[in-house]
């Protein structure tokens, strides 16, 4: 076994990526359920969809950043 506590911390930070996956799935799923109810309004909201996904994803990327810092900078 090699590695140290920083590696364990990096692995724990990767949980944040899973949390971001839940968030992105929530945004996309809700968009789809809304789009299927009113398909004619869906096309105009794809930009909003991507903005929502980007904001949900940003926090997962912060977790990824923490993992990177623990792996390479600590």
């Amino acid at each position, binding site marked *: 076994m090699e590695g*140290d506590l920083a590696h364990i911390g990096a692995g724990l930070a990767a949980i944040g990526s899973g949390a971001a996956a839940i968030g992105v799935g929530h945004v996309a799923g809700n968009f789809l359920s809304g789009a299927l109810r009113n398909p004619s309004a869906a096309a105009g909201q794809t*930009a909003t969809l991507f*903005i929502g996904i980007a904001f949900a994803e*940003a926090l997962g990327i912060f977790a990824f950043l923490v993992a*990177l810092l623990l792996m*390479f900078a600590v």
Partner: protein
Amino acid sequence: MSEDAQEQTHGEEAVAEHGAEAAHGADAAHGADAAHGAEGGLQIHPMDQFIVEPLFGDGPISFYTITNVTLWMMLAIVGVFVLMVLGSRGRAIVPSRAQSVAELTYGFIRKMVEDVAGKDALAFFPYIMTLFLFIVMANFLGLIPTSFTTTSHIAVTAVLAMAVFLTVTVVGFVKNGAGFLGLFWVSSAPLPLRPILAIIELISYFVRPVSHSIRLAGNVMAGHAVIKVFAGFAGVLGVGAIAPVVAITAVYGLEVLVAFIQAYVFTILTCVYLRDALHPSH
């Protein structure tokens, strides 16, 4: 994220050498061998593809050194230039393929700016179009095997994001004066809550360039690293390598999608920030 990070990538020997190498001067060698020695688990290390190396010679890297990053950014600019010049040269009524690509891209970005940022943001359309074309071209060039992905480096995307951040801030203050600070004062909220919300809005405003740059670099880098991890499996497995090769093909298809979507997201967030600068009232 470049040499210093690479040097500490793997194993205890890298940790042991850290003290010596952290004070790295001119002779801290860059390259895969310096990063993790001769021995190592996988033949193909997933992070080796992101090492910045000088194109000519083996000297230290200064801000003026021509590296592989410089080369591939130049190629991205040349690619955009060729696409747009070829696309706008014919001006045929029935467009050629290059003209179709150029016209569709133009229409796509123009409509995005108009829809998201408003009609008065069209003055910034050339800037946003340039951003999109550069990022999408750099992403797609990076997908060519053995090429270098410039947008996977936070140093590159941070410059792009800081440029957007400074532009938006300056535009906001020039267009609205002190009224731009209304962006942080949520007038629709109850009065006691407003100072707290102002602090939160202020923090979220300054986090923008961070998330803006790391989103692009993180997505591109993670995808390329995943491909190289599977490539490492293929090297270990020998005859059974067909499974990782299939996986690489699938991930590569996903990466083509990500290359476009991340350029799109970067551009659309630029439009969102620009809308906030032009119309700061909540």
